[in-house]
């Protein structure tokens, strides 16, 4: 058994990611396989820390700021049966907003927005995009 500091920190992720702030989420990998349980204990739901952030970006020439919304989904790597890899497109099902009882909505982890992964202490942050119904051709 590993008693190192990193092991202790990784163990603490069960509190800081999956503790009181944990939100049940569901992931679907590129093969269509759905993951909604914790790989460390499959009787438990897969929990993530979901933050609904806001940023100011300058888009146009006049320099007026545009307020954009950014959702960040952070998961404990050891809780994932399969960890999203760079260049993979995944479905992420999370509450649409932070209100209690908010309906779940589909987001996509896309090729254009890289994940951030703190591999030394074992977490991964996903930056999913809003998803809309594709227009029928």
């Amino acid at each position, binding site marked *: 058994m590993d008693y190192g500091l990193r092991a202790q920190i990784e163990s603490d992720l069960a509190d800081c990611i999956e503790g009181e702030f944990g939100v049940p989420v569901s992931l*679907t990998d*590129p*093969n*269509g*396989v*759905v993951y909604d349980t914790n790989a460390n204990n499959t009787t438990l739901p897969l929990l993530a820390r979901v933050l609904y952030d806001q*940023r100011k*970006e300058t*888009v*146009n*020439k*006049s320099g*007026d*700021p*545009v*307020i*954009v*919304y*950014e*959702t960040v989904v952070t998961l404990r790597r050891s809780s994932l049966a399969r960890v999203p890899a760079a260049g993979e*497109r*995944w*479905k992420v099902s999370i509450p649409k907003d932070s209100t209690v009882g908010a309906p779940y909505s*589909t*987001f*996509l982890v*896309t*090729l*254009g*927005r890289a994940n951030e992964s703190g591999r030394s202490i074992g977490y991964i942050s996903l930056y*999913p*995009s*809003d*998803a*809309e*119904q*594709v*227009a029928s051709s």
Partner: protein
Amino acid sequence: MQFTIVKNAIVALLRANAGGLFQVMHSGPQRLDVDLIAGTDKRLVVVEYEHGEFPDTVNSIDGGHIHDATYRIELLVSSAAQVDLATLDTTTDPAARAAALAAAIDPIDQADADWDSLYSLIWGILMAPQNDDLGLGLGIIANRKVIDAQKGNAIPEGDRVTLGGFLHFQVRMVETPVGETGTPADEQGLGYSLDTVINATSDVTGAGMDSAEQGVKAGT
């Protein structure tokens, strides 16, 4: 001046031809919530006067002045990933889910396509032969053209990808001084007049002035 009339005409022309594919504003909001431009039907077009040129060789001393007015027309889009949600969210078949994911369009590609199509729409409306007078009738503008365009970098931060850019639209018109409020009348027929009252009561040392001795006439 005519350039404000022309700007309103550009806005009116674009609005009349929007067809639910974009929205038009006179000037950009100072803090724009991206949700207000989310989706193809909410793509934002902002029309602003940017600069003007008054060519020397074609202006008269006492008549009309040629004004090449350049308007900056901002194009803003905000796009989400496109995927067959009807299948992805309902099917129990992993292969169908995988196929839906594989066929999804990333938001950065969708934003690129949304901006390109908006640019094409706007250019087409402004330069259509039937719109050569911008809806103002004969005698207001002499020429109009898109002189350049620039597409910005996509902003990938956020749940949606936001992309901006602009085109410069130049319109040639004639400006004529009309004696608006605040402009002194031309009483002498010289093309200008001075109508300023000097009311001097002390010199630079603060000492009182002898108006009569220094030739200064007190104002009333």
